[in-house]
C-alpha cells in the first residue's frame, strides 16, 4: 500500500494529475475499522466536455509508462492493489477533494478525504451499505457531528440524514 501512496505523490509531483484525495473504504480505514473491500478509490478532477463526458482519465498514461499495465475491471493494479480513479462529480465531492487532509502511512504522506465528507458522500450515495458505513463512523465517534451537520445542511442532504436516522442506523 505504501508504494501506491508513493506513486500517487509522484504522479502529483510530476504533473500527471493536479492532485488527488483517497476516498471510499480505503479512505475510511484512516478513521474506522476496515470494510470488505480492497479497491482504492482516488478522487481526481477531470477535464470534461460541455455534455459532461469525461474526455480523459488523468494518470492512466503515466501509470502505463511506469509499467503498470494490469487492468482489473475499472481499476489499474499497483502492487496488487486495484487503483480506481473516480471523477469529482458534484459540489460535495469537490469540497471533499479540496479539503482532504494529509495523513501518514509508514512515513509516506497521503491525502485522505475528511471523515465528515466520507460520511456525507455515503449518505448522498444512499445505498444500504453506505448507510452502514456512515453508521460505523458515528458509532466509533470518528466524526465531528457539528461539522457533519454543517456539510449536510449546506449540501441539501437533510432528507437523507432524516432517512438514515429513521432507519435506526445511528
Amino acid at each position, binding site marked *: *500500500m505504501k508504494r501506491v501512496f508513493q506513486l500517487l505523490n509522484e504522479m*502529483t509531483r510530476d504533473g500527471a494529475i*493536479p*492532485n488527488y484525495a483517497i476516498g471510499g473504504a*480505503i479512505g475510511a*480505514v*484512516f*478513521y*474506522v*475499522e*476496515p470494510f*470488505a*473491500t*480492497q*479497491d482504492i478509490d482516488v478522487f481526481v*478532477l*477531470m477535464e*470534461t466536455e*460541455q455534455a*459532461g*463526458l*469525461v474526455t480523459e482519465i488523468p494518470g492512466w498514461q503515466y501509470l502505463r509508462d511506469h509499467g503498470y499495465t494490469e487492468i*482489473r*475491471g*475499472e*481499476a489499474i493494479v499497483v502492487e*496488487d492493489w486495484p487503483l*480506481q480513479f*473516480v*471523477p*469529482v*462529480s*458534484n*459540489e*460535495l465531492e*469537490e*469540497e471533499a477533494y*479540496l*479539503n482532504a*487532509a494529509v*495523513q*501518514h*502511512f*509508514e512515513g509516506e504522506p497521503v491525502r485522505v478525504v*475528511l*471523515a*465528515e465528507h466520507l460520511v456525507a458522500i455515503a449518505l448522498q450515495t444512499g445505498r444500504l451499505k453506505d448507510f452502514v458505513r456512515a453508521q460505523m463512523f458515528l458509532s*466509533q*465517534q*470518528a*466524526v*465531528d457531528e*457539528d*461539522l457533519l451537520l*454543517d*456539510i449536510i445542511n*449546506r*449540501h441539501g442532504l437533510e432528507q437523507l440524514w432524516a432517512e438514515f436516522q429513521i432507519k435506526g442506523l445511528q
Partner: protein
Amino acid sequence: MSEKTATKTYPDPTELYSRKEAQRKIEAKRPVSEKMAAVTRLRDFERKLDDVRKANRAKRAAKQVKIKIKTR
C-alpha cells in the same frame, strides 16, 4: 502545487459506477483463498493505521478539524 478549481460542469459517473458494481459481483465469485488473501492484506493495512485512527478521533474530540474551502 498548482491546484485547479473545477468548473461547475461535472462529469457524469453513472456508467462508471455501474461498471464498478458489475466488477464487484464478478470479484465476489473469486476462490475463497483469493478472498482470504485480500482480507489478510486489508487487515494488515488496518493494523498499521491504528495510531492514525486514534489521533484522528482525538482531533475531532478536541474540535481541531476545520473545513477551509466550502463549495456551497
